[in-house]
């Protein structure tokens, strides 16, 4: 028992003696939280620079342009002569979207034909593209309905009747869980969780391998190898939960991203995630021949995890192979679930399946790393014993002579 406590404090001492380690484990996730909070502080796109090509140029087209200008989402920066100029302006970064009125726009409207307007966006960055499509389509839809209703009102209809006749099915949209369309809500959790995972798996990956490499296994041999694994996991669990708590506090209190879930769910779900990452890291640590291999492998392993977690690109859109591959990463079972806990306030029932999988990953990896580490430690002890005997033999022979 005392030896186990000794190992627990030894591990803390090892980390405290190395400020670099603590900086990376604690301050880097906090730094990423601050970077995300500051970067996404604008929340959503506004004042998107729009260009106009108006082949019609009448009061009607100016009315449409004015509607865009009035919206807080758009800034009409100028008129261009043709599409080539618009394309060049987009390439130069002068504008990120455009409205193009064909030459017959007003004539069509006046003659009772449908008039077309092209809403273009620079979709190289889909953030721009999706916002322009959504907000622009809303403005143009409203204008279209207004024009249609006006024509009926002119014929003596009331506005309500005109609206019902021209637009019998109205709709209102609600962007659930992210009503202000805030990109900070969307991206912050993913980047912070992925960073915590990255540093955690790294340190877990060297936790056992470094003992082997440094030849200091003798110092901890009083503790059963299985407990060595468990005690080290406990230390990294405490650090990661502490860091994660600070990050979450900053996310909620400093950057205003909601946390509707209860503390129990936060604690239980986060604990399982971090345990699974630590257990996986320790498995790498037990398997790999040295710390460099263990860290390199964890770097390669974690690199695609954010993409495959379904955080930006939903897993349902993956091929079945990728859907299966994504199951391997603990991040897949946490990052979306946690975002749902935070935004929807869901409870254990909703994340039950993810928690079960994280539990299986934690348990499986921990058992495997304990077994492999036990075998390795026994082997090392045997080798050392054999070495000692071979060193002692010449002395015995000398004494005998």
């Amino acid at each position, binding site marked *: 028992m005392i030896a186990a406590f000794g190992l627990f404090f030894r591990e803390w001492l090892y980390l405290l003696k190395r400020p*670099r380690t603590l900086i*990376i484990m604690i301050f*880097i996730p906090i730094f*990423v939280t601050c*970077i995300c909070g500051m*970067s*996404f502080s604008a929340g959503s796109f506004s004042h998107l620079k729009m260009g106009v090509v108006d082949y019609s140029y009448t009061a009607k087209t100016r009315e449409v342009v004015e509607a865009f200008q009035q919206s807080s989402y758009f800034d009409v920066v100028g008129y261009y002569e043709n599409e080539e100029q618009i394309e060049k302006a987009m*390439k*130069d970064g002068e504008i990120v979207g455009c409205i193009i009125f064909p030459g017959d726009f007003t004539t069509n409207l006046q003659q*009772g034909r*449908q008039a077309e307007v092209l*809403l273009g966006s620079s*979709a*190289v960055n*889909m953030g721009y593209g*999706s*916002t322009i*499509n959504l907000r622009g*389509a809303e403005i143009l839809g409203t204008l*279209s309905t207004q024009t249609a209703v006006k024509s009926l009102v002119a014929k003596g209809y009331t506005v309500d009747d005109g*609206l*019902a006749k021209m*637009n*019998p*099915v*109205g*709709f*209102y*949209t*609600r*962007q*659930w*869980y*992210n*009503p202000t369309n805030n990109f900070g809500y*969307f*991206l912050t959790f993913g*980047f912070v969780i992925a*960073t915590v995972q*990255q540093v955690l798996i*790294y340190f877990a990956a060297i936790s056992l391998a470094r003992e082997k490499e440094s030849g200091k296994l003798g110092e901890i041999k009083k503790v059963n190898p299985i407990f060595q694994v468990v005690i080290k996991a406990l230390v990294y669990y405490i650090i990661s939960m502490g860091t994660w708590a600070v990050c979450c506090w900053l996310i909620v209190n400093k950057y205003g991203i909601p946390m509707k879930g209860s503390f129990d769910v936060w604690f239980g779900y986060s604990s399982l995630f971090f345990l699974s990452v630590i257990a996986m890291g320790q498995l790498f640590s037990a398997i790999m021949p040295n*710390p460099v291999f263990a*860290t*390199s492998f*964890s*770097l390669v392993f*974690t*690199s*695609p995890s954010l993409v*495959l977690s379904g*955080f*930006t690109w*939903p897993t*349902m*859109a993956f*091929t079945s192979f990728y859907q299966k591959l994504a199951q391997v990463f603990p991040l897949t079972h946490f990052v*979306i679930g946690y975002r*749902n806990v935070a935004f929807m306030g*869901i409870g254990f029932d*909703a994340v039950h399946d993810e928690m079960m999988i994280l539990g299986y990953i934690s348990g499986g990896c921990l058992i495997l790393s304990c077994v492999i580490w036990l075998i390795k430690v026994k082997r090392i002890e045997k080798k050392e014993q054999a070495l000692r005997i071979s060193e002692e033999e010449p002395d015995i022979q000398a004494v005998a002579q």
Partner: protein
Amino acid sequence: MILTFIKGFGREIKTLWLDKRMLFMFLIAPLALSIVVCAAFSGHVVNNIPLAVVDQNSSAQTRALIAAFDEADRFNVTYVVTEQDEAVGLMEEGEVLGVVIIPPDYTRSLQLGQQAEVLIGVNSANNIIGNSAVVSSMQVVKTISAQIAVKSFVAKGSTVEDATAMVMPISTVLRPWFNPQFSYLTYLGLGLTGLIFHQLFLMTVATAFAEEKKEGILSGKMKAKESIIHFINKYIFYGVTGYGNILVNYYAIITIFDFPMRGNREDVAILCGCYILCLLGVGALLGTLCKNTIHCIQWLMAMTYPLFILSGFSWPLTEMPEVLVKAAQYLPPTHFLVPVRNIVLTGVGFETESIVYSRDMLLYLAVGAFMLSLISFLWKVYSARKKEKPKLVEKEVVQA
């Protein structure tokens, strides 16, 4: 000196060849990981978004609306329920990503010539998917609405064309420029390739320098002149191989995933060259400053996401606070990831101010990083030799 130089090359090749881990991380991992990541987006767009419809009316008209959603490529109506709470529950469980609520008076309103309202709720926790889903659902409802209105006008003797023009006098055509499919792969693929290469190449260069502290040029056991020749050797060796590697990576990704190459290949090649020069300096600086290979990997792993966020690749720099924009100017990915995407997708080149600025910044950063790495290298060689001197004297004394 020339012989030392040539020998140095042989030494670098031998070191890399013997270290299978490094060989894998340098030559195979960047392309393999880029392919894995890009292939994940091979679906390009998110279709078949699962929807729950709350049909509180249940009539032929509501079924027509539900069918319209189900038939749209973008959506799949997976649940039709009668209670809103049930639908919200499904959304919370992740079973559906959107909800369409048809109120009890939907059919009655239509029959009485009043406007019927439908609520469309989309889970916008993922904004980009959410926005696209809202636009598509608006299109579905508008189409249904227009169909009903047009029918009523046609019944009164109008032609379909005239009726359509009356109902929808302005029609909107959406055109996503440079990414017509509105594809995630087009949006993210090239940047992620650059970032993966950035991390693995830096790791290789930094490791190559850090490993020299054991027995190599930074151990203090070599003459200063010899050490500097090997330093230049390393620069040239990793510069040439790294440049070849990044070109192969981009060529493979652009070819395999059919990226439209609208710009000049030469422009991409030049920018890649500047990027490599920059990364060589940063890698050498990291390798000489860090105590060992593990420390280098530690810092690189920790900095992956800050670098990606600050590069302006996913969230543009124009939307960031000034202090972060200024900080981002000193990071190589800022001047590479977005410019390469712009060259490939929009066809800009060195006639564009922003690309010229990126190239110049990469070169300034490369010169700065080279100078710093050289100073740090010389300082480390000097201190290693200082440490090594007493040992050499001791050795000589013992020999004497």
